């Protein structure tokens, strides 16, 4: 296993779209181990996407079992070729990114999502996530389309009251 180097914006490669994985082999599983090590080395990181380490394949890892305050979670998830199929509810939350050091901002995400993805052995699974974990999955899936949380920032000023009114 080896810790990989994380690309940081303004590296233009972070804005490029990644391609689906077609071969589920030992090389892929070796990469997944390196990617996991890289995610765990980042301070407070609960997710990582392959393009963040310069591999432009649709691979995402998420692990929300390690947060300071416990949140509902599925433990460690390997998500290959993830497809979000349902979005429900909206919530403003604060995000940061290992590829954007020294900045956090407010982003609106769906509160609950349904999605499918393949694991490292090429087996397809269905998932339903909510809250913090759903936010992590959406943030990482954005990386696969060349999107950063900076593309989705909302004003810190207008989220608080509106959210409470409209969300009932």
């Amino acid at each position, binding site marked *: 296993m080896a810790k990989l180097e994380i690309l940081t914006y303004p590296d233009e490669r972070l804005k490029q779209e990644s391609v689906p994985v077609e071969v589920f082999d030992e090389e892929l599983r070796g990469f997944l181990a390196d990617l996991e090590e890289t995610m765990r080395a980042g301070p407070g990181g609960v997710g990582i996407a392959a393009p963040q380490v310069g591999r432009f394949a649709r691979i995402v890892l998420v692990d929300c079992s390690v947060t300071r*305050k416990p949140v509902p979670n599925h433990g460690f998830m390997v998500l290959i070729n993830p497809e979000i199929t349902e979005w429900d509810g909206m919530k403003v*939350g604060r995000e940061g*990114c290992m590829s954007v050091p020294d900045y956090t901002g407010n982003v609106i995400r769906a509160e609950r999502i349904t999605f499918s993805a393949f694991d490292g052995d090429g087996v397809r699974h269905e998932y339903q996530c909510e809250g913090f974990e759903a936010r992590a999955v959406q943030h990482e899936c954005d990386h696969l389309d060349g999107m950063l949380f900076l593309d989705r920032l909302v004003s810190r000023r207008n989220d608080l009251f509106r959210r409470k009114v409209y969300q009932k």
Partner: protein
Amino acid sequence: MQHWYMLTLVGKDRPGIVAHLSAALFDGGCNLGEASMMRLGGNFTIMLMVEFDGNTHALQQMVASVAESMGLHLHLDRINAQLHKHLEPDVRITVYGADKAGIVARITGALAEAGLHILDMDSSVAGTADKPIYIMQIEGHAAEGVDSLQSALNVVAEKGIEAHLEAIDTMIG
């Protein structure tokens, strides 16, 4: 030798001030850092970090004519700039109510004692002239934990004043 300055400008608001000001600073060889512009009670206010290769007097002279042309008061301080060292807030507090006399001092005082370091605060007077409401939003760092702040809020909040606290759990991915 480059130095950082904090430039503060206050005056009557009108469209185009930021564009005009930043063009003048750029033309004068300044580099801009972090900035916060707000319209407070119809007044234009901005605080702007400016990096400049010269002394306070030279920068003052350069900005003075621009400020004057837009009817803005100018204040300049040499500062020690800490870039790339943002403190991250972990708590957000919202306070609102009909009456504001003494409320801000009492609530922020109690919160400070309970370990709150305010990183960002803004407040508005909304509603109507005969029924004004006061709304304050604070983001900060809870040095002694969020529970300590909640206990402090429970003690100082009173009838007619709503005070809400929520933890900010930043997702890093």
